[in-house]
């Protein structure tokens, strides 16, 4: 109340709890990267911090975009991203080799990253446009399935199993929230359970299949593909309750943990900060996601509701898949831990999601005053 009197209204309207949480996670990530580089700001910590600042500003700018704009750009944006994905695939085919990004001269764009929020927006827009009584019919099912299958299939071809899973997950989440009959999900889950062993055997690339098989038994190949999982578990397990102390993680500093600054950054953190650091980080992410789900509950219309919950769940997928991967509960699929792992793409995608969520949140909190 008192803060409300001292600080100008535009600032008090910002979701401060969430922003503090966000900065805490991002800041902690920078600290971990500082240690991973052997106590040095270069090559990771400094540029990560800089990018975090830039993308955070971008998110704040996005938050001032009126929420209804997202509904309007959802389908065109989705279409453009899909074309870009196709282009990437074609270019890759021409140049003879798989490729994930478009080189525009100034920046390299990775269309599959943009697809993560846009699949959510597009599906949300679709169910917003769909007459409610169509939701439980076939007409409410196949267009959404097609919306999901096209980008997921293209990304699978790259091949990027992790991103394809996230796109599918994001789309399915919207379908679930939009009210597609529950039995379809239960049936789908059962079918999936049957399909996975077949897919593993016949659809996946050799290296993807190996990753899955070795995930099931990492010790079978301790120096090959199972090495990542084994070393990651060793890093986390050896950290114990309070960790080995900042800068003392032998697994990462002696290079035993591969990708200790990107996909396996959680293991790097856990080795030095222990269970306490890990639980705090998990808690922070869960609070962040809960805020996103809260935005969805407050959202003024169907599109905003679906979009907000979907975006929050996209962040959740990032966190959940990455943590399951580093703790040996899922195969290594190359999903980074958002805001903590070194790398701009995931950071950008996450903050785009946050920006849109803030924009929806602004619409939600403004509405009652009208």
């Amino acid at each position, binding site marked *: 109340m008192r803060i409300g009197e001292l600080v100008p209204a535009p600032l008090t309207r910002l979701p401060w709890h969430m922003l503090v949480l966000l900065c805490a996670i991002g800041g902690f990530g920078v600290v971990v990267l500082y240690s991973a580089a052997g106590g040095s700001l270069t090559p990771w910590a400094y540029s990560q911090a800089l990018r975090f600042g830039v993308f955070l500003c971008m998110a704040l700018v996005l938050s001032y975009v009126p929420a209804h704009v997202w509904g309007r750009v959802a389908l065109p944006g989705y279409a453009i991203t899909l074309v870009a994905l196709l282009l990437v695939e074609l270019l890759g085919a021409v140049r003879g080799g798989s490729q994930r990004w478009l080189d525009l001269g100034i920046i390299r764009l990775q269309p599959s990253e943009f697809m993560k929020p846009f699949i959510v927006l597009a599906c949300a827009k679709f169910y917003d446009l769909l007459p409610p009584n169509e939701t439980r019919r076939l007409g409410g099912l196949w267009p959404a399935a097609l919306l999901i299958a096209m980008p997921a299939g293209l990304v699978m071809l790259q091949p990027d199993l992790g991103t394809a899973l996230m796109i599918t997950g994001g789309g399915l989440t919207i379908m679930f929230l939009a009210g597609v009959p529950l039995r379809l999900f239960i049936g789908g889950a059962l079918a999936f359970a049957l399909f996975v062993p077949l897919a593993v055997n016949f659809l996946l690339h050799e290296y993807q299949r190996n990753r899955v098989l070795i995930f099931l038994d990492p010790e079978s190949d301790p120096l090959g593909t199972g090495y990542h999982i084994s070393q990651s578990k060793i890093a986390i397990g*050896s950290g114990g309750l309070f960790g080995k102390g900042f800068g003392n993680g*032998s697994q990462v500093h002696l290079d*035993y943990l591969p990708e200790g600054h990107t996909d396996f950054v959680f293991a790097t953190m856990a080795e030095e900060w222990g269970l306490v650091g*890990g639980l705090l980080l998990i808690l922070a992410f*869960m609070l962040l996601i809960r805020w996103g789900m809260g935005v969805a509950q407050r959202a003024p219309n169907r599109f905003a509701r679906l979009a907000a919950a979907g975006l929050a*769940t996209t962040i959740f997928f990032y966190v*959940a898949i990455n943590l399951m991967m580093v703790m040996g509960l899922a195969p290594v699929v190359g999903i980074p831990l958002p805001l903590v792992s070194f790398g701009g793409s995931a950071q950008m995608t996450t903050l785009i999601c946050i920006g849109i969520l803030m924009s929806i949140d602004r619409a939600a909190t403004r509405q009652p005053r009208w």
Partner: protein
Amino acid sequence: MSGPVRIVSEAAQTFSFSRRAAMLGAGQAGIGLLLAGRMGWLAVAENERYSLLAESNRVNLTLIPPRRGWIVDRQGRPIANNRTDFRIDLIPERIEDAEQVLLRLTRLLSLEPDQVERVRRDLKDARGFTPVVVAENLDWERYASVVVRQPELPGVAPSQGYARNYPAGAAVAHLIGYVGAASAEQYQEVKDPLYLAPGFKLGKDGMEKSLEERLRGRPGAKRVEVTARGRPVRDLETRRDVPGATTRLTIHAGLQEYAARRLGDESGAAVVIDCNDGGILAMASMPAYDPNAFSDGIGQLEWGMLRDDDHLPLVNKSVQGLYPPGSTFKPATATALLAAGVDPERVVYCGGGYQLGNRRFGCLGRHGPMNLHRAIARSCNTYFYAMGREIGIERIAAAARALGLGAEYPLPIPSQRYGTVPDAVWKERKYDQQWTQADTLNTSIGQGYLLTSPLQLAVMASRIASGRALVPRLLADAPVVGPSLGVSAEDLARVRAGMDEVVNGAGTAVRSRLQVEGVRMGGKTGTAQVRRIAGGARGGLNVPWKYRDHGLFVCFAPVDNPRYAAAVVIEHGMSGSGAAAPVARDILTYLYDRPKALESLAALEKGWGGDLRTRMAAKEAAYRQAKLAPDPAATPTPVAATTAQAAGE
């Protein structure tokens, strides 16, 4: 109509959204809890296991091979010790470009082509972190030249350790054995990582092998923090090795070396036993290999040379060589006669042989009337034929066994051979044939089926000399076993008097009398047929070396109160008095008058062409020359090198 439906439906949709969003949120929270639980499991419940794994990642444990226990002689002089060794190994796992590394090492260490070939061969068979030896025994300059370039040579592991050293070289080869790197089979058997440590050697033969346990010691460990790529970061604490126990032998190092040198270029063995306690003072077998070279691993060429040598340098003849004792067995027959109650003064007339049925058994001379004393001194076959036949084989065999023949002794030497003390039961079992009188006659003079090793002959001599059933010992801490032989002092005195006569009276070995004031040696010569030559002809100079008779000699000194007993066997030496007795005389002389013994050896060695080491080196060089000469491919390199050098000057 559609209006109200739509409104209801939208409300239902919102309700459905809230419900499903709650389900989704619960699902997310559930997975969040699962992740937290998983993390708790890894970090708390499994913490100990993963901490160990992290530690074993971080710390590279290098075993330091323990310094091998010394083997010293009775006075504490080293027979086998350790010297500092600079060595270079290759770790196959870490090599990036094997050919490149080999090329550089060849240049830095000036390796011979056949050494490079061996390394290349070993590398092909090796896997993982099992080191492959490139060179051992390097001098400091060459070692250092590799050490300073180590960062550019991935996979090359220089190390500084200890190597086995045998100061007396070939003189102790058969006695001590040698050490060598563990073979792949040995590692598979025990799976001890020490076996893979560079520089670790274990006993491969002789006492080095049988005393392995007490000589080995416990390895030390060097702990180094390493990165995943194996780059050392810093040294952690190091545990020192525990050297193996020093083992003292009954051997007299000086005498051992003297005996080996005195055997010269002959193929033979000499064993000296202390009559007080059964301790073996010397046990030499020649020719021999150089155990120092063997311990470093020898080349194909050296091995070929040793294998092809008809003097069998790879066989320890003192315990593995079996020879008919010939006349050296007569003192044993004599104790059997006395024990059987034969009157020592009984006379047998020697007319140059003995008639058994229609077969004549020859004697080397026509000795005339012989009693026991003279029969020993003159080595009269006729006497022992007649008397041996009278008492029968069982009594002779019993006496031979009592004197230690046909037995294996509790010595730390692998593969002793028993030899044979034949009797009726033995022949029945072995050949399924009846024992004949002819067999008894042959056995009485140490021929026929009788087979003994030089060590057994020395034991026999020590038992006759001491009157005790001495059991030979090699380890200084082995118990002294020497119960009474069960032969009366009077009988023993008669036999010893006969042996005194052999050397110091009218006997067969008077030329080998001990030239030491106040010390007389008693002995018995023997000349053993290698193969039966028709018409009673002996294997002398007129037959090829390998068919010549063996020369044997057993002896003890001083005669009146025996202190030392010895046996010398010279393979194909033609006669005991000519080949073996002089060797035994010089060996015993060494014990009483060292300068005199060394003086006579020096004279002999001059005639032979230098001392043991020089002669062995010359022999090897000659062999190498002979092997390499017909191969034109091997010569161009040295020629080119010489030319280049000449041009440089």
